[in-house]
């Protein structure tokens, strides 16, 4: 049986340099006395889509001995690829999906970083692919897996991912080519040689170690260990708040502490007290339930859900809050880091704001704000000042403007927006308390549904509209045994599209479907 060509496939994103990598590999193979063939299907995929390069190598000496050239394929064959190189995690998953990675044959060299696809990015909530699931898939499917964050390595060396991938290929030893020939290919290309070589060397070393990916995926708050809860507050005045947090059930404490910090940051310690008072009432309901009912889990789902939702709702994004966050020194430092300004490099920051009449009225004292909103003529007049504004927060005047607005915080409790939000919060909590005793899981879903109320301007309006729609269904839902599951479905539907089509459909479906039989109030939780 004669030797077979080495089969290698590169799964990349358009514009990521898969072509450069393929060219390097061809050059290396030829330098090492191999016949090389490569091909690709660029087409429209060049524009940010998923694209594949395919290469085959065969020893020249073997070919001369046989007196003929091997016939090489121009596409990877499922189950017949020796090495798959994926420049991104989901693309590695896609290679598995295409059957190109098989346990008997394939070495998979992949970057564990993510470049999100449009459906993950454009969702109205969380729709990121399951990284842990994909990583597990790669481990199960590859004969050998080299997996690490190659984007980060490229970044560290101011290089590009193709150099890192090349290093990983070299380090993995999957190709019978000498390291020197890899380095020569980089040198010969003559572009950014030193940084590319550094990235190459780093990746080469890492690939020798194999699979390094161990990123944790999940809720960062859930990952907060108990030990992080401080015993003593840094400021003695806040000790009572901390003690109250510590008296809450264990599963709630981390979230409650985050909520308290957020409420202080938003307003003051008194506001955090209000947060805790509200939360404790809900916690009592949970307490009563676990005492009253045998066999009920002690997970305090309701308190957990309210701890999160309430903290976010109470710290609503009014103009004061935005101005406050935009003027902090930590924010300036973060911008410097994000834009990669060099040390001491000067930079300016311009904010893009477009407050509507609602936002302006929301910042006014409640009576005045309501009057503005009620009076079409005043609204129209104010509307003349609502064109998009560019505020240069790095200049003295721009900063002062925002700083003054942030200082308005002192009078926030009197503003129209504060009254409106806290009124709505009160109503929401009352509904939760009302139904929790009889329809616990429905109450949990209602607490979670607060997630719909977020954002600014039209986004906020839409969210509030959807949330109100859900609220209006509560009576109908309490009459159904599957009320909680239906509310969860409505919640998801509200996040499915901006136009509200999915929600309308779900509502229509809710009226039509006969109520399924089953145990009362089975939660979807």
């Amino acid at each position, binding site marked *: 049986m*004669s*030797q077979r060509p080495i089969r290698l496939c590169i799964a990349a994103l358009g514009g990521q340099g898969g072509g450069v990598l393929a060219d390097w590999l*061809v050059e290396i193979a030829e330098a090492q006395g191999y016949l090389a*063939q490569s*091909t*690709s*299907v*660029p*087409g*429209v*995929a060049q*524009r940010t*889509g998923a694209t*594949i390069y395919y290469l085959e190598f065969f020893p020249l000496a073997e070919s001369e001995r046989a007196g003929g*050239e*091997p*016939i090489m394929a121009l*596409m990877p*064959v*499922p189950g*017949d690829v020796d090495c798959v190189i994926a420049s991104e995690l*989901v693309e590695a*998953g*896609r290679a598995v*999906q295409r059957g190109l990675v098989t346990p008997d044959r394939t070495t998979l060299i992949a970057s564990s970083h993510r470049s999100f*696809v*449009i459906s993950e*990015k*454009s*969702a*109205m*909530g*969380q729709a990121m692919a399951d990284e842990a699931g*994909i990583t597990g*898939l790669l481990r199960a499917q590859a004969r050998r897996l080299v997996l690490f964050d190659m984007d980060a390595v490229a970044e560290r060396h101011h290089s590009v991912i193709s150099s890192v991938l090349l290093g990983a290929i070299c380090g993995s030893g999957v190709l019978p080519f000498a390291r020197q020939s890899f380095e020569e290919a980089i040198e010969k290309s003559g572009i950014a040689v030193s940084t590319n070589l550094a990235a190459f060397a780093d990746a080469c070393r890492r690939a020798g170690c194999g699979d390094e990916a161990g990123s944790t995926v999940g809720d960062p708050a859930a990952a907060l260990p108990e030990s992080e809860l401080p015993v003593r*507050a840094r400021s003695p*005045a*806040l000790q009572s708040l901390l003690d109250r947090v510590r008296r809450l059930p264990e599963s709630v404490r981390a*979230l409650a502490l985050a909520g308290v910090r957020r409420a202080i940051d938003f307003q003051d310690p008194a506001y955090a007290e209000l947060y805790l008072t509200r939360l404790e009432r809900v916690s009592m309901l949970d307490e009563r339930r676990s005492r009253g009912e045998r066999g009920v889990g002690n997970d305090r789902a309701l308190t957990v859900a309210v701890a999160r939702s309430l903290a976010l709702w109470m710290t609503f994004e009014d103009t004061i809050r*935005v101005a406050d*966050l935009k*003027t902090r*020194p930590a924010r*300036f430092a973060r911008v410097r880091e994000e834009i990669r*300004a060099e040390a001491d*490099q000067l*930079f*300016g*920051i311009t904010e*893009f704001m*477009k407050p509507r009449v609602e936002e302006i009225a929301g910042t006014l004292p409640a009576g005045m704000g309501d009057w503005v909103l009620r009076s079409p003529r005043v609204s129209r007049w104010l509307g003349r000042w609502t*064109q998009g504004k560019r505020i240069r927060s790095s*200049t*003295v005047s721009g900063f*002062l403007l925002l700083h003054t607005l942030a200082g308005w915080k002192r009078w926030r409790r009197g503003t129209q927006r504060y009254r409106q939000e806290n009124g709505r919060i009160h109503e929401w909590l009352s509904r939760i308390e009302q139904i929790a005793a009889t329809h616990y899981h429905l109450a949990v879903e209602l607490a979670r549904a607060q997630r719909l109320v*977020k*954002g600014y*301007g*039209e*986004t906020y309006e839409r969210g509030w509209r959807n949330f109100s729609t859900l609220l209006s269904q509560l009576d109908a839902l309490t009459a159904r045994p599957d009320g909680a599951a239906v509310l969860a479905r409505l919640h998801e539907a509200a996040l499915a599209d901006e136009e509200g089509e999915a929600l309308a459909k779900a509502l229509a479906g809710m009226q039509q479907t006969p109520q399924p039989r089953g145990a009362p109030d089975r939660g979807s939780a």
Partner: protein
Amino acid sequence: MAERSFAKEVKSLRLGAGSPFRGEGILAVTKALLQSGVAYVGGYQGAPISHLMDVLADAADILSELGVHFEASASEATAAAMLAASINYPLRGAVTWKSTVGTNVASDALANLASAGVQGGALIVVGEDYGEGASIMQERTHAFAMKSQMWLLDPRPHLPEIVRAVEQGFELSEASHTPVMLMLRIRACHVYGRFTAKDNRRPAFCAEDALKTPSRDYGRIILPPSIFAQERQKVEDRFPAAVRFIAEQKMNVITGPESGDLGIVLQGGLYNHVLRALELLDRADTFGTSRIPLYVLNVTYPLVSEEWVRFCSGKRAVLVIEEGQPEFIEQAANQILRKQEVSVRLLGKDILPRYGEYTVDVLRSGLAEFLERFSAGRRSGIGGLRPAKEAPLVPAERLAALVPPRPSGLCTGCPERPFFAAMKLLQREMGPLHISADIGCHSFATLPPFNMGNSIMGYGLGAAGASAFHTDRGRRALAVMGDGGFWHNGLTSGIANAVFNRHDDVTVIIDNNYSAATGGQDIPSSRGANPHREGNHSIVDAVQGVGVKWVRRTGTYDMRQTLKVVREALTTDFRGPKVIVAEGECQLNRQRRVRPLMRTAIREGKRVVRERFGVDPDTCTGDHSCIRLSGCPSLTIKKSPDPLRTDPVAYVDNSCVGCGVCGEIAHAAVLCPSFYRAELVYNPSRWDRFLARVRAAVIGVLQRRGERRRLRYAL
């Protein structure tokens, strides 16, 4: 200037006899043209042959040294018509385009060329855009070859064979006075390989010679009675001549064992994959030695009856492997064999799929079935050779759920993005519109996150595609056209037609300065300096020239202006076609131009301000409205740093080019205050430094005061 430069690669076009040539299939075709003494070359760009046009453009010097005339034709029809030079003179000419779309556009000229017949070899290199990576409707060039009587070559995707096909293509064309089409599949266009070069040849006869002594023959004119004579020549002279040449030159290959009761006929272009499939089934070795007789059709039209008879006689069953539909070869072969009374079981699309690309996997399954059914059972043992279909470790549904699809989209900073974002906002305001879309980068607007465009009728046909939506009252239709499509044919097929027929619709011409989707080639309105082409021709002037009275211009990056103009066009009382030219330079090309200049300026110590955008993660609430309006690759998401928030926040990564659309969208859509623009100053002036010091002092005092207060309440 095209997106990809072949300045380095074209040097290999100068290689002389005996030198090893290395490169892409497309580059090999160019070299083969020069080795064949071609006198003139033209074509229109489009994947998979865009690079052929780019190589030719970059090879301008070499071409002029050899006296070869090269044109970047205005359309495929122009390119095809250029071949008229070969009708009366022994001039060798070659043209190229994306097929079948380009062949569609060219068919009028091609049909007339084929009827008139040629003296000089006429070669049409078509990139068959079929299967994975294709961007057009799935059809076959084969049908055009049959209907106009042109010969179709489908060589093995192996550089020496491709080069030989070019050389023999000219000879075949001259021997049979018929244009020849050379078909290259997508992967063959991009395959890297090697062949031994020959010297380039200057054309023996050139345009000057022709013009010195013009030759005329009424028999070559497409009018009666010549056309009837030409049809007779096609059937009685040219077809037999072609068949004779193909047989004598052994252009098709019969290989494998002499005897055997099974056989396989295949298109040359599928050779490597059929052989790989046979190898996996243990019916061939790595070097292409098959244990089953093979008949490789390097010429797929016309078929050589004697070869079919010879190959099929004495066999029990023969499998025809023919990609695409309908199965023209299989049908023709059945006719040949039946008339010659050869009794063989001919199989094809009854075993292989009726449609879709013939991947190795598909071929392996089909061949396994063929061998299983027709091998004498005892000897075969094929059952064990079937692709080992192990139960997959992970079920397909789970895989599909884990791996989200990655559709293509507009590039980072693309000037077309703000235009379609504005259209999205406009439709929110006015309700959904009927949008007649076109071919070009703007076709991506039909994909997420824009999802707009109701039909695409072809390149430059956006406006024409809206013709029937002509009403006197009510809502107007909106047509989109790119600058590439506009110059290709849209000026007449769309704009002039709308004027002449008194349309009342709105056409938006998206002017990004290039034929961008095909790789950034220049077109008549391109602004950049090009030593070989004459650009800078205004689209607005052209539109007014054909009689449009209502014309507006807008910069796409100015969304508010765009919104205003399009709203006006859709609602104005003005009767007649309304044309909006939406301008914004292709960002890929712009960056290629601007980046080096900026780097040089920074190095030279000049004051430079570079802008880029960012999102504040603490004010972003994770609704992603901005992404639904933009879809920019650099506007992405990351996990929220806030432990309370479960939805990911928007995030601008480092690939941002600072095009400004994020800020425009934040304003135009009343979105959210999370976006900021950072202006990085390189080589600041003294005044910059002074201002920075003052600002830092004032801001610093206020910020420190706030920090002290926050620290007091730190928990």
